[in-house]
């Protein structure tokens, strides 16, 4: 049953608290069955936005549509959305079955139907036969599934999730990421998920909106955000990046030539367009885009190259990094350590050649501090 009407539509939603603008003129729409994430640092307004969708806060201006109908004046207990809270908010005074059946009881569904539906939804989340047990008997991951079951039994048009994995330990969090994604495709319900953890957003979502200071910086797929960030904030926030402040010296069809304050010459690509010679810019290079070599020839074909001294080896298994200091400019760079074993013996003080393509060097106009952190 595919329709053109998106499940959730926000039309220039704004929210102010006194003179602080938490959410500024945000518009987006989420098609049916999409896993949509809102990714942003804490204090960016994502929680406020989610609470407005749930109905706990009223937007200062703008409109909110669910399945094409405005719900701006509908109180939260009448909205066809459900929310999984950050700390899950399971009712400790009820057993698991009563928790899951809570919403149905409020709708006045008769007792035997409630029991049937509760059993079915608990089976779907892989927790058959626990209805009589107290909430406290569950592990963190199981509580998570009960919280989702409690919402899904009501068949909401949109399920909102407020960083529900934040309280779990790392191993379980990794596991729950996959499980959440599976549950979403199984229920085929629209999920709106907010998080400050980029890996959660990147792994699970079909669409991600990166939010900062109350506005959506960029909306797109995980790949788009990672490979083609449209703003300096996104380039710095999604994935790792080395950042340089520089001035444009020359502009050619092949790319930009820039100089940093230390005199380092960089070659890069204008990410959004519209940069001119003399502009102050921010240059982003991902640690994994930098190639290492033991001799100068290994990186001679690359448009940016140099020799660095290993300042530190941050060993973290597959995500190990080298901190290099460029011998010429003194600039610090982090470089992903390839896991082929070739550079396993690198240690502090060693000299190594490094270089990267100008196509993987994204340049943005400098406007204040684009990071905001």
């Amino acid at each position: 049953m595919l329709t053109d009407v998106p499940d959730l539509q926000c039309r220039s939603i704004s929210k102010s608290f006194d003179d602080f603008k938490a959410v500024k003129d945000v518009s987006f729409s989420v098609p049916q069955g999409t896993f949509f994430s809102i990714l942003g640092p804490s204090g960016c307004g994502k929680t406020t936005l989610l609470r407005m969708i749930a109905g706990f806060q009223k937007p200062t201006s703008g409109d909110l549509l669910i399945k094409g109908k405005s719900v701006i004046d509908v109180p939260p207990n009448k909205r066809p959305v459900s929310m999984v809270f950050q700390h899950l908010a399971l009712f400790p005074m009820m057993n698991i079955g009563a928790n899951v059946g809570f919403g149905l009881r409020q709708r006045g569904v008769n007792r035997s139907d409630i029991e049937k539906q509760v059993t079915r939804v608990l089976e779907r989340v892989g927790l058959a036969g626990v209805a009589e047990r107290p909430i406290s008997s569950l592990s963190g991951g199981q509580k998570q599934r009960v919280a989702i079951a409690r919402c899904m039994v009501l068949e909401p048009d949109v399920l909102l999730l407020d960083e529900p994995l934040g309280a779990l330990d790392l191993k379980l969090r990794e596991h729950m990421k996959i499980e959440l994604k599976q549950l979403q495709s199984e229920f085929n319900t629209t999920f709106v998920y907010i998080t400050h953890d980029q890996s959660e957003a990147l792994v699970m979502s079909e669409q991600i909106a990166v939010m900062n200071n109350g506005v959506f910086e960029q909306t797109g797929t995980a790949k788009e955000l990672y490979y083609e960030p449209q703003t300096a904030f996104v380039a710095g926030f999604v994935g790792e990046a080395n950042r340089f402040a520089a001035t444009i010296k020359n502009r050619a069809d092949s790319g930009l030539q820039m100089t940093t304050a230390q005199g380092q010459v960089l070659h890069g690509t204008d990410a959004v367009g519209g940069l001119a010679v003399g502009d102050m810019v921010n240059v982003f290079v991902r640690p994994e885009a930098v190639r290492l070599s033991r001799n100068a020839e290994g990186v001679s074909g690359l448009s940016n190259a140099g020799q660095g001294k290993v300042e530190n080896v941050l060993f973290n298994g597959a995500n190990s990094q080298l901190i290099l200091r460029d011998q010429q400019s003194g600039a610090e760079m982090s470089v992903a350590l390839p896991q082929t074993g070739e550079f396993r013996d690198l240690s502090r003080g060693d000299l190594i050649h490094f270089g990267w393509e100008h196509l993987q060097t994204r340049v943005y106009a400098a406007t204040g501090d684009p990071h905001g952190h």
Partner: protein
Amino acid sequence: MATDRSKLAFWLLLAPCLIWLVTLIILPHVGMFLVSLREKVGVREYETSFANYAVFLNEPLYWNTFARTAYMSIAATILTLLIGFPISYYIAKLTRGRTKTTSFLMCLIPFWVSELVRTFGWMILLRETGVFSNFLQYLGLVNGPIEMLYNDAAIMTGLVYTSMLFMVVPLVTTLDSLDDSLIEAGYDLGASGFAILREIVIPHAMPGIVSGCIVVFMLSLGNYLTPILLGGKDSLWFTGLIYSQFITRFNWELGSAFGFLLLGLSSLIVFVGLKLTGQSLGKTMAQS
């Protein structure tokens, strides 16, 4: 050696509590119980019997006063709960920071003056020539002065007023510990305000409700000043009877028997209350 030390510390720390319990609670009660079993058969001649308790059973006035004290105290407890719950909810959930401290303090301030002065305050308001009576006459709502003291309503007002703080404190404590997101979750899942109150707020606050009710009930049942001053000579409060047996009639034997009956009554009603609400005393007291 270390265990001996910690044992010694344990008993030393427990000592004040034990001394207090034994000398001020247990010993007097044992003594009182022995006194209540003495029947006076002549001058300085006593026999052990249940005659004092038989006197209570055979005299309808004692019986009625006993029952009346019980149901008035239960009514005062319920009324205090009904008034105290919204106040506590407001303080615990709807106020923040300064307002919270201020409103909590406002509940406490009346307790800075003695119970006697507070009760006299009510008398000034309620008596025939008092503030309310004069005000109603001034408004032209009544023709002559009206007496609002010396009836059950006045006693009830005084009891509820006196015990309000003891209901509000445990309720605020338990309601404070209720996570706001539980209320929001209930609302989000389609519950009405009433359903949230019934299914989430009250079950969570139950230990506070029960401990508040126990304290208020005990205070009301054992209250002497308020019923006597606001209810006058018709107040018929059981503590009044005990007082008159001990002080006016010098009948310590019957007074002791009454005292024990009151102890039995309060224990019984608290026990029944706990059974009805499915709470245990330990759980209730540990929570607040």
